[in-house]
């Protein structure tokens, strides 16, 4: 069933068409049950080699990609770059050319520099998957979010989706804005103006500087992580306490949203800052569904990029 995914790499949601995303999500549906079986493995990518090259620390994304590859029977190697050749001063170019010489089929890369996966893709012959680059994109996160929303709400079209928090530094927000607009969702942003990037309206989103009106009638509420490491010393907001009071998701602050609104978070969560524990663990929360969806979506990505034509899932 490998239908036509007309892209050699997955560098971002930008550049994908709606039908490409639909194919990814439908393929993810077909892989979803694999992870629920007693034997969680299909032979689809047997003989393929996947390198997970992570220049930033990550637990969930790396594990998710690793399991996705292994459940497709690929050989998966994880490389934690902070402890390897980078420490010796090797350039990204030399590192990726070295890895390319080992003939991988897919390189999954996470990097702190926006555009690093694009740079890699320009220089190698294998497939490149962006697992998060700087403040730019995190396409598999947006795909797993879309997958989760579609499962919970049936569709993405016409939904009101409110993304709250540090939009400026968030690759998750950028990928989600692109994907949701592709499907005709109404996207709203709620953040202190210090955390809204200039010209973000160009995505076709509505911007709010208070949480309450942004949540009015929302079907989906996405909290973003307050990235302390990026915000330190930047005078973006005065204190975590004030942030949680003005933009934190609590049972109270969520009142304007639809009663059946779902609450999402890309993780890891700062409980008590952007999200109250009662919301994170409450019945609206789909945080763990997102994590589960992540494996299926990444299986779909790896499969569509690297499987040989004849193979079926």
């Amino acid at each position, binding site marked *: 069933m490998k239908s036509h995914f007309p892209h050699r790499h997955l560098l971002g949601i930008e550049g994908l068409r709606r039908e490409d995303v639909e194919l990814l999500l439908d393929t993810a549906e077909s892989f979803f049950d694999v992870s629920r079986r007693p034997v969680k493995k299909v032979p689809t990518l047997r003989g393929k080699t996947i390198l997970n090259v992570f220049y930033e620390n990550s637990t969930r994304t790396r594990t998710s990609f690793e399991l996705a590859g292994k459940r497709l029977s690929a050989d998966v190697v994880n490389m934690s770059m902070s402890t390897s050749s980078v420490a010796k001063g090797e350039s*990204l170019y030399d590192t990726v050319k070295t890895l390319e010489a080992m003939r991988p089929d897919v390189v999954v890369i996470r*990097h702190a*520099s*926006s*555009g690093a996966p694009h740079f890699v893709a320009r220089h190698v012959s294998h497939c490149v998957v962006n697992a998060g680059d700087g*403040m*730019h994109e995190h396409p598999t996160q947006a795909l797993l979010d879309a997958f989760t929303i579609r499962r919970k709400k049936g569709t993405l079209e016409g939904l009101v989706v409110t993304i709250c928090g540090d939009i400026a530094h968030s690759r998750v927000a950028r990928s989600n804005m692109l994907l949701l607009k592709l499907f005709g969702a109404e996207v709203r942003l709620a953040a202190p103006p210090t955390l809204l*990037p*200039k*010209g973000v309206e160009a995505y076709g989103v509505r911007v709010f500087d208070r949480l309450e009106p942004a949540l009015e009638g929302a079907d989906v509420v996405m909290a973003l992580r307050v990235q302390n490491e990026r915000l330190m010393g930047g005078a973006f907001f005065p204190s975590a306490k004030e942030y949680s009071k003005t933009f934190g998701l609590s049972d109270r602050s969520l009142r304007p949203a639809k009663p059946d609104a779902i609450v999402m978070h890309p993780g890891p969560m700062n409980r008590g800052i952007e999200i109250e524990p009662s919301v994170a663990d409450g019945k609206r929360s789909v945080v763990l569904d997102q994590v589960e969806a992540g494996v299926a979506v990444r299986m779909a990505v790896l499969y569509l990029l690297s499987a040989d034509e004849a193979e079926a899932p």
Partner: protein
Amino acid sequence: MWILTGGRVIDPANGLDEVADVVIDEGKILAVGEGAGAPYRERAERVIDCAGKLVTPGFVDIHVHLREPGHEYKEDIASGLAAAAAGGFTAVCAMPNTKPVNDERAITRAMIERAREVGGSRFFPIAAITKGLEGKELTEMAELKAAGAIAVSDDGKCVMNAQVMRRAFEYARGQGLLVIQHCEDHHMTAGSHMHEGPNATRLGLRGFPREAEDIIVARDIILAELTGARYHVAHISSARSVRLVREAKERGLPVTAEVTPHHLLLTDDAVLGYDTHCKCNPPLREESDRRALVEALADGTIDCIATDHAPHSTLEKDCEFDRAAVGVNGLETAFPALLQLVDRGELGLGRLVEALTISPVRVLPEVGGGTLSVGAPADVVVLDPERRWTVRREALRSRSHNTPLLDTEVKGAVELTLVGGQVAFERVS
């Protein structure tokens, strides 16, 4: 004696734009005019047919980085001056952000000495405003001037402390030195890699707001007025900064400005796809800024064009965008790049030539030249506005190739560059 015959001679300093001969003898302009060569034909060693070509004063670039001493892997004075000549520039002014910084007379002397050995295009060093470009202590401007520095600038860095800037203005005025500022509030641009706006947001890159430039331009105009200093805005890039300069000029202040070819031609759309060749400081901005720059150049608000020639090695450009060095290699592609503005009807050819010749000399008279006046040194360039060529690495004299025009075909070529009547560059066809 040489005769350049039958070319379209454009010499804005003398209000000349006509088909004419240029006669050169003993390194100087002997005669210019229609048929001016005829009486000398018998005696001429060389008569160059310039029909269909442009003959103009040699270009003057008051803002280049030649990287010597310290960064010779990017460029050195020899390769930089060769690139200048190949680009039609007969005089260049080198910024002091070398290693060590040109903040002492010995360094100024060494640079001048090196340029003298190399020969070719004329070389004028600009010294630092503050020691080590640190924005704290003033350099010995009198010493530097005596050694041959023709202006002061901390280019690459902005003098952030207003009190230091005031003192720099006052002291430089005492020495009669032009103060050239790289206008950037560094607090507002920390961690930035391109113009702040929708494209930066889309690429996930922190952006330089225009206001970081505008705030310094505004502050400096106020301080220039306070102190009476000659103030020059380097590589102006924002529409509001242009307005500030225009208003200062209307009030009669000695304020001038330059603009680069890349800011006149490109916008931040060129950065999409993370093209590090389009990473520069100030960054490429938006179409509204670009239009304002072109208009201001046309009406004289912006005095002149300067390339901000900033060579960087492949290692520093073929890497992650946020790690890439800032700057565009400009000397050898300036003419064909700028000719696009003429071909598109955005700028008159006469003004373009003026902005490359006499206008920069008016900003910085210490450089001299910029004219074809009889008796002036024969710094002359012959240009073919129709010739097409491809900007290949091998075709460039610069040691670096970091230009957005790399591997593209351009129209407009330098055929011959004379410095003091000597061939500094001649195209081999």
